[in-house]
């Protein structure tokens, strides 16, 4: 191969060269979400052969809805996992945000939108609190957030009372997890996604050409956007079929899906294309190098915790919407599943490696295990055992690929 420039950029060569380079990266330990995607396929085949109900459109919608709250908390955790930190309090932070919402909206009768914004503010405040202790004082995030995990349960009890359970009455909020968009809206959503992805890829391509850099074969761009379009069309199409069993038609994309997608897209954009996102990866990869490069490491950590806790409240809202109530015991369990989802998806616990999309795929794996085992009538014990096993397997893959990619074990 001869290039006009002696050093390649990774964009040169035919589709075949590109594919070969991809295989080489895989062998080098950069596997990304590939293991999780394979797990998704294997589990899908397994469960659909064991339960005739698994592949129905009703269950498909169910699976997405089940996974969505988990996805959002996993997205939240990615921001701190990328820094090699952890937030064990993310689940109860979500519960606390909703408790604040209940007091303001339910007890004091404030406007629900204002109450929701203040609930998110509560999340941001908790994040700032964690960030302060971690980045300014130097307390390990494991300890700070474990303390908060306990303390915030007390906070929820204070606000909502012992065994406090309140019905979520706001129809807009209840419908997020329980209602669907009109069928046309699903297709509009897909069109926006495909158009957005196409124009972003084209803009990147134009920019490279303008600067004088080689670009990948155009067919690869079409392939990428085409894959999004086809998979999206299959899912939207299936969700547009009436899946109701009674007289009422149940059809359309669940309202929560565009919400989760929006968080995914905006978050990925921030991580990939802004200075802040770049610095998150840098601090996660080598804090000392980041510091010497002039990056304000403490500030980046602080912001990451604020984002994490704020998104945790969004996840708390989705959980409340799903069960239709705000409870004083909310959010205790989901955080560990959230960590599991991120790690299973390929987000490294050692920091610096991972993407929101990986966490989304990991959340689908965890939700699918739960859903599928439930359908074939496995006891809850089996679900816990298998989910735990999958997590350890994923963490092992993480540690091994880290070793493969040449990082010294300390």
């Amino acid at each position, binding site marked *: 191969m001869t290039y006009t420039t002696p*050093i390649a950029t990774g964009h040169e060569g035919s589709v075949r060269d590109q594919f070969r380079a991809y295989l080489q990266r895989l062998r080098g330990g950069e596997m990304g979400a590939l293991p999780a995607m394979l797990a998704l396929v294997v589990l899908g085949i397994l469960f659909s052969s064991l339960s005739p109900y698994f592949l129905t459109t009703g269950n498909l919608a169910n699976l997405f809805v089940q996974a969505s709250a988990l996805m959002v908390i996993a997205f939240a955790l990615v921001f701190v996992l990328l820094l090699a930190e952890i937030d064990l309090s993310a689940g109860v932070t979500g519960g606390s945000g909703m408790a604040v919402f209940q007091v303001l909206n339910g007890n004091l009768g404030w406007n629900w939108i204002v109450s929701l914004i203040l609930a998110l503010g509560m999340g941001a405040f908790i994040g700032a609190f964690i960030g302060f202790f971690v980045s300014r004082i130097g307390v390990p995030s494991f300890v700070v957030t474990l303390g908060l995990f306990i303390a915030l349960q007390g906070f929820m009890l204070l606000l909502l009372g012992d065994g406090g359970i309140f019905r979520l009455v706001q129809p807009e909020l209840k419908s997020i997890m329980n209602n669907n968009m009109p069928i046309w809206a699903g297709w509009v959503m897909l069109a926006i996604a495909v158009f957005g992805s196409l124009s972003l890829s084209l803009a990147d391509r134009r920019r490279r050409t303008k*600067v004088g850099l080689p670009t990948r074969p155009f067919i690869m761009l079409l392939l990428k956007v085409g894959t999004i379009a086809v998979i999206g069309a299959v899912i939207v199409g299936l969700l547009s079929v009436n899946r109701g069993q009674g007289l009422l038609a149940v059809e359309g994309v669940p309202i929560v899906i565009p919400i989760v997608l929006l968080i995914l897209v905006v978050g990925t954009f921030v991580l990939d294309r802004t200075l802040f996102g770049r610095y998150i990866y840098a601090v996660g*990869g080598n804090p000392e*190098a*980041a510091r*010497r490069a002039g990056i304000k490491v403490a500030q980046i950590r602080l912001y990451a915790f604020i984002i994490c806790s704020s998104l945790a409240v969004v996840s708390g809202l989705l959980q409340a919407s799903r069960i239709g109530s705000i409870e004083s015991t909310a959010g205790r369990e989901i955080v560990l599943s959230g960590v599991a989802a991120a790690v299973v998806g390929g987000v490294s616990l050692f920091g*610096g490696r991972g993407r929101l999309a990986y966490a989304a795929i990991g959340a689908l794996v965890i939700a699918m295990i739960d859903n599928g085992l439930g359908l074939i009538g496995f006891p809850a014990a089996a679900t816990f055992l298998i989910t735990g096993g999958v997590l350890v397997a994923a963490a092992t893959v993480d540690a091994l690929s880290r070793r493969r990619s*040449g990082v010294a074990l300390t």
Partner: protein
Amino acid sequence: MGTTLVELSNVTKSFGPVDVLKGVNFKVEEGKVTALVGDNGAGKSTLIKGLSGVQPYDGGTVSFAGQEVSLRTPRQASSLGIEVVYQDLALCENLDIVQNMFLGREEKHLTLLDEASMEFAAQKALQSLSVRTVKSVRQKVSSLSGGQRQTVAIARSVLRNAKLVILDEPTAALGVAQTEQVLNLVRRLADNGIAVVIISHNLADVFEVADRISVLYLGQMVAHVDAKKTTRDEVVAYITGSKTPEGVA
């Protein structure tokens, strides 16, 4: 003789009662490689830390391009064009070469990261140093060898328009072939007009790459000699203190 870029006169540094630099004179020329040698604890790293602003000198003067300057913070040093390649390199292994080379000085286009421009500039910087060992500028640093990493760290200083590049033991952890590559790179830096200071304990490397050799002995500069006009034995004698300076204070 090249033009003098940096001249230290009578710089001192003490840690409590211990005088580590006892009035050192040191001179660095543009387009030349100056090797700084000396036994363990002679004060080489201390001298360099003063130049990079991380650990200011207690006394003496520093002149840069003929002007007396103050070097009290790393920022002052880097704004003058002084870049240090530390032994531990300070690279982020999870980022690629371009991202590392621009870390902390990213270029932007409409408030977003301008990956294309950075990639182009990184490629140009590596080409200007005739680097051929790196396959792609979008390789992750974790996939690079020690010598390649050293190359990236050195090229980063070129990208930052460094006038003086200081390398602290750049070949200490490298094998024969990789040492050769890095020394070639050091040579090309100087050929591009940059003043280079290289600290090394390996005299073979020093004689291969350096134009001038400065020897520190117990906090004093005991020799500043032309590499072509001296011998290995003479340098060793200065380092061990068995030969004393004539005229160099």
